[in-house]
């Protein structure tokens, strides 16, 4: 069985987000980490590998320094790593990114592709499903549990108030939630091996069946008008009233704010 995990190097937002004067992220000022949802996806792949036997390949698109995050994945136990990097791929939005990753994945065999649900620097949750669409394979998003049975993958898909258990024939793509598991630590020996391994580096010319008009900044329909840190919600207002008074109170508030 062959599993591909798509990972991304993102700025660590734990200590708050820093911006450049032009509104873009100041990536240099923030520590770079493996996106948490992607890390959970990698852990899920490694557990499937331990249980059923599998070859786990990690792939990322990014600057040459994204090599670090691939080495981290190797140090956790991934078998192969691919870095897709090229000047013409820079400035990509979700469409151009998914086009690029799909173009790279057309070169390799896979039974299961796992991506994180979303990256903490963009929060779009679009790239995973778009890759599946480009490759014309089914997608199951928001996985909080992934199991493999024969040729099928069984996923517990999280909803706000319930979950779905979905069974799909592989090949298929699953997007993972960070709640899926607690990812393992790298091992010291794994780190040494990771730096002795080769990371495959691909550029634009290695992408299969993609058009230049769908790549990089030029191929990105999304234009960012403004970026901001998460707005912290206030504690809200707490009132203790009986049922009918509560309804009146809520109605008056909704009217006051012109919601109704």
């Amino acid at each position: 069985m062959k599993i591909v995990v798509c990972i991304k190097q993102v700025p660590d937002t734990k200590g708050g987000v820093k911006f450049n004067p032009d509104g873009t992220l100041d990536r240099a000022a923030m520590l770079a980490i493996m996106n948490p949802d992607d890390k959970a996806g990698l852990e899920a792949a490694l557990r499937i590998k331990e249980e059923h036997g599998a070859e786990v390949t990690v792939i990322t698109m990014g600057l040459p320094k994204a090599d670090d995050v691939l080495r981290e994945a190797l140090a956790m136990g991934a078998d192969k790593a691919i870095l897709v990097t090229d000047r013409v791929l820079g400035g990509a939005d979700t469409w151009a990114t998914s086009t690029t990753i799909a173009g790279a994945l057309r070169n390799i065999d896979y039974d299961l592709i796992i991506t994180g649900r979303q990256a903490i620097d963009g929060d779009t949750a679009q790239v995973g499903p778009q890759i599946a669409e480009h490759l014309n394979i089914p997608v199951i998003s928001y996985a909080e549990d992934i199991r493999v049975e024969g040729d099928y993958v069984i996923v517990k898909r999280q909803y706000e108030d319930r979950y779905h258990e979905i069974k799909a024939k592989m090949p298929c793509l699953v997007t993972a939630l960070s709640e899926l598991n607690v990812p393992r630590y790298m091992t010291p020996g794994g780190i040494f091996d990771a730096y002795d391994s080769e990371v495959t580096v691909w550029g634009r010319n290695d992408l299969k069946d993609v058009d230049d008009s769908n790549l990089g900044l030029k191929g990105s329909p999304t234009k960012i008008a403004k970026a901001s840190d998460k707005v912290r919600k206030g504690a809200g207002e707490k009132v203790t009233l009986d049922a009918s008074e509560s309804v009146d109170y809520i109605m008056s508030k909704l009217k006051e704010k012109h919601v109704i």
Partner: protein
Amino acid sequence: MDFSLDKKHEMARTLFKEFAETEVKPLAQEVDETEVFPRGTVEKMAKAGFLGIPVPKEYGGQGCDPLTYVMCVEELSKVCGTTGVIVSAHTSLCIDPIMTYGTEEQKQKYVKDLATGAKLGAFALTEPGAGTDAQGAQTKAVLDGDEWVLNGSKCFITNGKEADVYIVIAITSIAEDKRGRKKKNFSAFIVDKGAPGFSFGTKEKKMGIRGSSTYELIFEDCRIPKENLLGPEGRGFPIAMHTLDGGRIGIAAQALGIAEGALDRAIEYTKERKQFGRSIAQQQNTQFKLADMATRIEAAKFLVYRAAIAKATQKVYSVEAAKAKLFAAETAMAVTTEVVQLFGGYGYIREYDVERMMRDAKITEIYEGTSEVQRMVISGALLK
């Protein structure tokens, strides 16, 4: 000369730091307060491969170098001196002598389990009457058929009751030199927990590193297989001294970590603590103290890393190890004492980590060779 770390060592540090912050730091106060050995942490470290870092992969280890191991002890000790010494005693004092002097059978039988963390190791040289003067030891071993029979006791043994495998140094013969003076010949042995006649005495109540299990070991007609002799008969003393050279690098790393951990706390605290209308970090007295501590720590770090590299590249590294341990231990004591002073009254309160760090630092000037012993080793090399 290049003082920068390569990428794999940088990443290893990231790993150790993350593990220490997540798994070790939250328990450090409790481990100290309750004096309970952190078994859960040891199991997690085993899983993460921290218990066999410099051991080749074919013996169950991680196949890394002594520098990586030293960085692990350093990062653990930044947040918990107890956890640092557990790894150090296990790796340097138990695995290392078996790897260096053991037969292939001994390596297969013992190192594999130790390096994967399935078993924990300890080392027993010190006796009630024999500390710095290790020649004063009384524990004896006599060959009886296919077994060695050990009698005597060892004290202050780190990982004492928690270990599974012990390196024990005992007298195997007494020879007379030309002038008729009696000289003890020691040998080294590998003793399994549970060997008949092997039991534990008092658990020591200590000033610092209170979660590490420090016990007296008692051997009463303790019988172990003949093949558990480690290295040649009569070579126990040089084996013990060489083992301690490696051990000192581990303790130097522990001391370095304690000093760095204390400085980290001081930087955080002095920025927050306000006196006379401004933070104490804005006062020059504090600034100069922080600068002196940081400079001294950096110097200690170079000595410790230098000793770790010497262990990887040189056959003999006694002087490098002695200098590293001497300077790092005295740095740990000086820095933690100064940091408690910067914290003022709060530094004396157990709720804050720095008083624990000061208590933990003291032992690094004493065990695995006191600072005085390190000075003897260093000056001995100068004057020979």
